[in-house]
């Protein structure tokens, strides 16, 4: 019995570690994330990176699906406007997610999603963004959809 209780206590005290999904475009942001790792900038181990060829590849349905499958926050990163490897992919992404933000608001999920531009040389910025976003999600608490 005592074993069980101590286990229960542990669960109660356990800090909330959000599950965060991060879409990185292959040409800038993924390299940025890589740089953050190589240069040993500290950032929370809560994120799972999915590499896509361009931020324009990310469809809003991916984000809803991620939430449905138990993710607490989603962040999409791409090259800075004008730097996209495919010229306009990130502009499409920007316009699309601007509209999609309103839909997320209907579900009260708008604070759990973010779109950011990170270039290949901005390893530090990548780490900062992830830290900040993780803190934001921690404040919001778990979503608990599964």
């Amino acid at each position, binding site marked *: *019995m005592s074993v069980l209780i101590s286990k*229960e206590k542990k669960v109660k005290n356990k800090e909330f570690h959000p599950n965060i999904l991060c879409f990185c475009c292959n040409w800038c942001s993924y390299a940025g994330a890589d740089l953050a790792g190589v240069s040993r900038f500290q950032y929370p181990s809560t994120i799972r990176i999915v590499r896509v060829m361009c931020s324009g590849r990310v469809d809003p*349905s991916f984000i809803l699906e991620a939430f*449905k499958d138990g993710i607490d926050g989603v962040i999409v990163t791409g090259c800075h406007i004008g730097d996209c490897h495919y010229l306009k992919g990130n502009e499409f992404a920007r316009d699309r997610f601007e*509209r999609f933000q309103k839909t997320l608001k*209907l579900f009260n999920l708008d604070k759990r999603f973010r779109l950011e531009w990170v270039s290949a040389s901005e390893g530090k910025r990548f780490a900062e963004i992830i830290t900040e976003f993780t803190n934001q999600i921690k404040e919001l608490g778990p979503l608990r959809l599964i």
Partner: protein
Amino acid sequence: MNFIVEIERSKKAKLEADEFNSYLRKIYEPDLTSLLKKCYQCARCSGVCQISKVQKFTPSRIIQMILEGFEDEIIDSQVLWDCLMCNSCLQHCPKDINFADIVRIARYKMRLKDIQNLDRSIAHKGIYPLMSELMIQKNIKIERPLDWIPKDCKISEQGNILYYVGCLPFFNYEFQDSNSIAESTLKIICQLEKDPVVILKDEICCGHDLYWGQAKFEVFIELAKKNISIFEKAGITSIITACAECYRTFKIDYLNLFEDFNKKFEVKHIIEYIFDKWKQGKVQFKNPNESNDVIPFTYHDPCRLSRFLPKDNKIIEEVREIFKHLKTIGYDFKEMEHNKENSYCCGVNSWMNCNEKSKALRYKRLLEAKAVGTKMITSCPKCRMHLKCLKKDYEDFSSIEILDFSEFLVDLIKIIEPNQTVEEK
């Protein structure tokens, strides 16, 4: 202690599963052969099948194969995802074989088998069915914006009459003009009702698409239960909707699940609603423009209002009576070549089958419309979206204006004040 908690939890889970199965039994009949055995292979269904006009698809052959014991092969081949669920086959079947309903059941079976992940091939990458799925989650709080509501409309959260908006605000992300349907409908209802109309901030999807298109019956049942509890909490007794799919779902599919649904709530489509008020002498039609031009217009019957309702439902006649009357104010109603129960399908049902083949169907439909009028009215928001989507691609259709029923009538309707009718009498 923990052990007891554990037992309680498993008991609860079992109860939930039992409840779900009792509902599922009402809408899911796994024995397809028993549903089909009356078929005598006259092949009329294959003759009228809408999708067979543009691709190879023969319902009668599929039925025959199932009857001969090749059901597993049919399920494995995934061919039934191609059916448009337009119900034309039922209209012409001498033995009343409801093929679309069988496809619905077969789709559930295909899903259980889990051969191919279909969700990726739904139109718009399946985002709209996904939204409906999110709505049953306990931790998601839906908060609809109310900024589209016309200024002089009185609305409330509690009351008798509900305007069920449906998924329009959710479509807004890609179809920016969808709010105008809701706006015009509410404008009409507000003028006719003395009490404030109920608009629910936390309204959820009726589940039509998940029921017919993606065969996610679990979610459909949850949505139905949640909807009913929301309605009851707000004290609703009658529901008005401007969406053909919501109408059919409430009228028939919810009734299959909950026998007392139509005793608790009276469901009306906006066409019925306006027709009744018109017959009661509460509305008139007036043309705001003084010009003498006659505007020819036509009406596209959504399948949910023409082929998916019981035979005693009069909506398709009622809407035509209104339209014929409009001749007096300079709107000339013309029928398209295929109309009423025979009308062509818009080709995309429940966000399924949006491809170049169903696009051909839409193209044909717009050609028919172009031949007879400059305005094309429909009473299903999704028909309007899909047809408009095609119109964008072809310049030769730029002369046609595609409108929803309420968008069309909102400027033409004139309300007679209650006291005014008394005076006249």
